[in-house]
């Protein structure tokens, strides 16, 4: 909302410094978002006329001029501009003027020639951002007139009005606010006050309210014989100062009263109306040509103002092109009404059409001000356009005026604010805002629909006394840790661990909403879709973190980054019983270690690197089972008991190629919510007292026998001395030379130890032999020794 300071000054005394006013308003919750100054506020600058001009004797670029400034004697001015001729009228800064930037004008010599002032450009006067040459004034400008009078200074505040304060959408409302904040009297002119006690005549057949729930009160007043024409300067100036275009004297008055009192008004050309006014729902598909030149298709959920033939206006939003006031209009019908805010808001949104009128109606206008605004406008119309008004407006329905009595307890106010507010302060504030004291509290004015409860009044007090008047209190309190605390700590620990030097993963954060296509790259559960997505690329809630990470990989590939380790910890969404859960996903690709002068080409990561990373997460009770997965070429599932809690593997090479990868991409995703987030308490195991003995074993088995089966076979012997099995070599030879084809050579280091004594070579040999026998029997292993 744009507020003119000149206009406000007519209603309340303002501080000299606009920044001080802005600060006071902002601190009271009426945020000033911008201050715009227009016109010229400089003294000692007058209209001057060039009488003679001649070349400066000592400078090519300067001229020496004789100018008339309204005084008896012409002045000599040295000037650098070239864009003028004898007879032009220009602004002249006289000695004593202080230009922006604290530049003082004095009589002095320029290259040896006296100059008694400075002729000015628009930029120098602060009238334009950029201007070449002198500002050439209109030939009608009177020599000697102060420039201030030609370009009257004006300051306009751009104020952000919160939706609960419709009363501030007018200059009178804003003045009331400022008067209370500044403790200054509010001066509402008699011409406005006098409009308050206006009576109306029954509408009879002239107005039919066909949707009284959304338009409970409608008034119309005819004025005959008006002379439509341009507005007088004062009216035009007021509107233009706040950015409204002047249309004609009638329309301008309606806009002026809206800006003054906050009540939107509309004037119809009486000659274009067919019979009485109907305030009715639009019919399905009803077409309407609005004042903005566009045709809107309306429906029964929109309200229109119509005559007996057709719609004249979209109620509260915009008038029609065909019924508006034009130069040929002589009789007008002035509408002043009250519309239900929600109705106007919906209509405005649905039609994507908003106006100064809808902006106010959707925030609630003062129901008690409908008639007063009409009377004020009629008086002004008669002043600027003449005409004869009906003795009283015709009114249908009743205005939903509400002025509730609100209970108020000073102790409660003090307790809630934690500040010792004086009773007189409260009274001053609430009275200033237009409330009246009653036995148990206060009666709110009809223009403040936001003041209906005690807390609403307390807020007013808080706003005005300001937060500075409330002493800060520092309170701490013991609070038991929650499940969310433990989950947060679990997540933090995983983040720290994966990003720590060594593992070196970067944490990613991707968007929840992804495309269906992207989700399909890594299927996980059933998709949840958004009904109103911003686009196809954000149509579903991610069922997995992997698609986001893969897209991040692709983006990094494009930027030339090839060795990547990313993880993400976040929510995923799947239709069904467990709709949201926290997931951890990892992706890695490229070199297994950073290249260095020692190892210029480190090997590329593979599935077993991923497996090693998963092992560091210490997921309790998890086993990895070989599995298949539609997105993975190699896959294992993470099992916890019978439950599948994750998947890990190598992405399908075709998918990796689509992402422009140059090395295998390893992927894992784990459902974190199934793991107990409580920090584990470690149990100590006694350190071994006797030395261990290690014996290697190298065996040949069928190529398809998995490592896990070999260890299982070793462990199933339940050899009490065996405390460790470590695989250290796997070898196959496709040529069948070093190892027979179809077989593989695997080597383990077996560690033996007794808790009671140092083992003898014999004891170890015995145990070792027993294990070999077992492997031979169970896996048909042969040994290479």
């Amino acid at each position, binding site marked *: 909302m744009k507020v003119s300071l000149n206009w406000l000054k007519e209603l309340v005394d303002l501080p000299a410094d606009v920044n001080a006013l802005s600060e006071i308003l902002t601190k009271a*919750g009426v945020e000033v978002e911008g201050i715009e100054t227009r016109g010229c506020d400089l003294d000692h600058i007058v209209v001057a006329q060039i009488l003679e001009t001649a070349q400066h004797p000592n400078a090519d670029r300067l001229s020496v001029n004789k100018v008339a400034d309204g005084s008896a004697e012409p002045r000599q001015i040295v000037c650098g501009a070239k864009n003028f001729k004898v007879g032009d009228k220009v602004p002249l800064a006289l000695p004593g003027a202080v230009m922006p930037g604290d530049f003082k004008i004095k009589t002095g010599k320029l290259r040896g020639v006296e100059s008694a002032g400075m002729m000015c450009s628009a930029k120098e006067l602060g009238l334009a951002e950029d201007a070449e040459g002198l500002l050439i004034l209109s030939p009608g400008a009177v020599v000697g007139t102060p420039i201030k009078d030609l370009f009257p200074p004006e300051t306009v505040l751009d104020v952000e009005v919160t939706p609960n304060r419709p009363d501030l959408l007018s200059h009178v409302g804003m003045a009331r606010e400022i008067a209370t904040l500044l403790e200054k009297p509010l001066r509402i002119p008699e011409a406005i006050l006098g409009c308050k006690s206006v009576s109306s005549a029954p509408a009879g057949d002239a107005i039919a309210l066909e949707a009284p729930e959304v338009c409970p009160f409608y008034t119309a007043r005819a004025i005959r014989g008006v002379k439509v024409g341009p507005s007088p300067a004062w009216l035009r100036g007021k509107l233009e100062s706040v950015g409204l275009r002047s249309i004609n004297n009638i329309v301008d008055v309606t806009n002026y009263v809206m800006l003054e009192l906050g009540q939107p008004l509309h004037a119809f050309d009486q000659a274009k109306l067919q019979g009485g006014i109907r305030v009715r729902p639009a019919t399905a598909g009803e077409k309407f040509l609005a004042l903005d030149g566009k045709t809107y298709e309306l429906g029964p959920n929109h309200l229109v103002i119509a005559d007996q033939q057709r719609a004249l206006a979209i109620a509260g939003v915009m008038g029609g092109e065909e019924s508006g006031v034009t130069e040929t209009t002589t009789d007008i019908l002035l509408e002043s009404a009250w519309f239900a805010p929600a109705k106007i808001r919906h209509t405005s949104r649905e039609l994507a059409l908003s106006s100064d009128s809808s902006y106010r109606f959707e925030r609630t206008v003062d129901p008690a001000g409908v008639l007063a605004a009409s009377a004020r406008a009629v008086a002004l119309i008669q002043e600027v356009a003449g005409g004869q008004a009906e003795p009283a407006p015709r009114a249908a329905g009743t205005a939903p005026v509400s002025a509730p009595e609100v209970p108020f307890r000073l102790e409660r106010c003090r307790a809630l604010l934690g500040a010792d507010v004086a009773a007189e302060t409260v009274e001053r504030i609430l009275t200033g805002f237009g409330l009246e004291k009653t036995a148990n509290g206060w009666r709110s004015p009809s223009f403040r629909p936001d003041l209906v409860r005690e807390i609403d009044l307390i807020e007013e007090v808080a706003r005005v006394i300001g937060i500075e008047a409330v002493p800060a209190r*520092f309170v701490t309190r013991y609070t038991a840790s929650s499940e969310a605390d433990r989950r947060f700590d679990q997540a933090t620990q995983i983040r720290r661990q994966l990003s720590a030097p060594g593992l070196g*993963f970067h944490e990613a*954060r991707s968007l929840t909403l992804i495309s269906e296509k992207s989700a399909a790259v890594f299927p996980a559960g059933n998709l949840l879709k*958004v009904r109103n997505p911003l686009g196809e690329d954000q149509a579903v*809630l991610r069922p997995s973190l992997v698609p986001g990470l893969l897209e991040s990989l692709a983006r990094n590939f494009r930027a030339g980054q090839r060795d990547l380790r990313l993880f993400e910890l976040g929510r995923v969404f799947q239709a069904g019983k467990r709709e*949201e859960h926290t997931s951890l996903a990892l992706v890695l690709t490229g070199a297994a270690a950073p290249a260095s002068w020692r190892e210029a080409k480190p090997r590329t990561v593979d599935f077993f690197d991923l497996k090693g990373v998963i092992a560091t997460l210490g997921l309790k009770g998890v086993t990895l089972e070989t599995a298949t997965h539609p997105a993975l070429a190699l896959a294992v599932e993470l099992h916890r008991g019978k439950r599948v809690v994750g998947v890990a593997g190598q992405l399908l090479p075709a998918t990796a190629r689509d992402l422009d990868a140059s090395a295998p991409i390893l992927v894992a995703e784990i459902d974190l919510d199934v793991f107990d987030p409580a920090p584990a308490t470690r149990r100590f195991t006694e350190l071994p007292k006797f030395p261990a003995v290690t014996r290697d074993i190298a065996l040949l088995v069928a190529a398809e026998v998995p490592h896990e089966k070999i260890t299982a076979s070793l462990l199933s012997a339940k050899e009490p001395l065996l405390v460790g099995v470590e695989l250290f070599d796997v070898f196959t030879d496709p040529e069948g030379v070093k190892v027979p084809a179809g077989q593989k050579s695997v080597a383990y280091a077996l560690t033996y130890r007794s808790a009671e004594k140092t083992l003898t070579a014999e004891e170890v040999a015995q145990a070792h032999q027993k294990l070999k026998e077992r492997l031979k029997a169970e896996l048909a292993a042969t040994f290479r020794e």
Partner: protein
Amino acid sequence: MDQQLEQLRAEALAALAAAADEAAIEAVRIAFLGRTGKISVLSEGMRTVSKEDKPRIGKLLNEVRNAVSGGVEARKAALEAERDQAALAGIDLTLPGIPVPQGAVHPINQMLERAVAIFRKMGFALADGPDIEDEWHCFDALNTPEDHPARNEADTFYLPDGRLLRTQTSTVQARTMELVAPPVRIIAPGCVYRRDEADATHLAQFTQIEGLYVDEGVTLGDLKGTIEYFFRELLGSDAQVRMRPHFFPFTEPSFEVDIKASALGKGDKWLELAGCGMVDPAVFAQINKKRGDQAYDAEKYTGFAFGFGLDRLAMILSGVSDIRLFTENDVRFLAQYK
């Protein structure tokens, strides 16, 4: 014999000094101390030494023997030291170190961890709620009426079943109070969603942290203290806090919080960083209705709530001008937060 022994000692030590490697040392050792070595052979002569000379010669013999075997060890150690030194000589210590892969926690989560640590110090516990919400928790419970501008398809993402993606973490206020009677002292971080087209300062998704404290006798002064403490801990003791009255449906009075601090790097400019206020009694009324009791009796309990965006805070603090960098996961960006 004395003379012979002294001569052997000198001979042996000279031979050791000349020995260039382990084998040569061993040869010297065998030549003098071996079973047929010169000293061993000479010691055979002890039998012929007179009774009175025996102790003296015996002592000398031992001395010589020890000197030679000591010399052998010393020479070996000297050779070893020479070899060790030679092995490490000439290494260019200015070569770069071998890099260890190092990652980083995401900047938003670093911010979150800092914020949580500060609030925990003040005795706030964490609370949580789902991203997919119903209208009651997102709007009705928070005193946002049916016809409120935020409640429409243009601003909020809806699911086909009428539920929505929460537009604010204030939903967790409602969820917590629904389950827990006062006192409540929680913070709730989480993702929120608004139907905004992405640009340098907007994403359809961002991260908020919400706070709620309800107890007997909670005042606006407590809220002020909490907000001031938080921002001073986070941004340094020079942080100035301005609370500017504003309007939110679920708090009254409501404030926007402006901060000025050198850590923000914006000079003398106030930056709007948070919203807060005293819990509106209408919110308590909604909660009571849902709970079916009067646990949140507005006459007995008061409370405050606050919320702020972590993305914006992280952006300002680390000088990031495009919010999209936070979700693009370019490692050249992420690696800067090591």
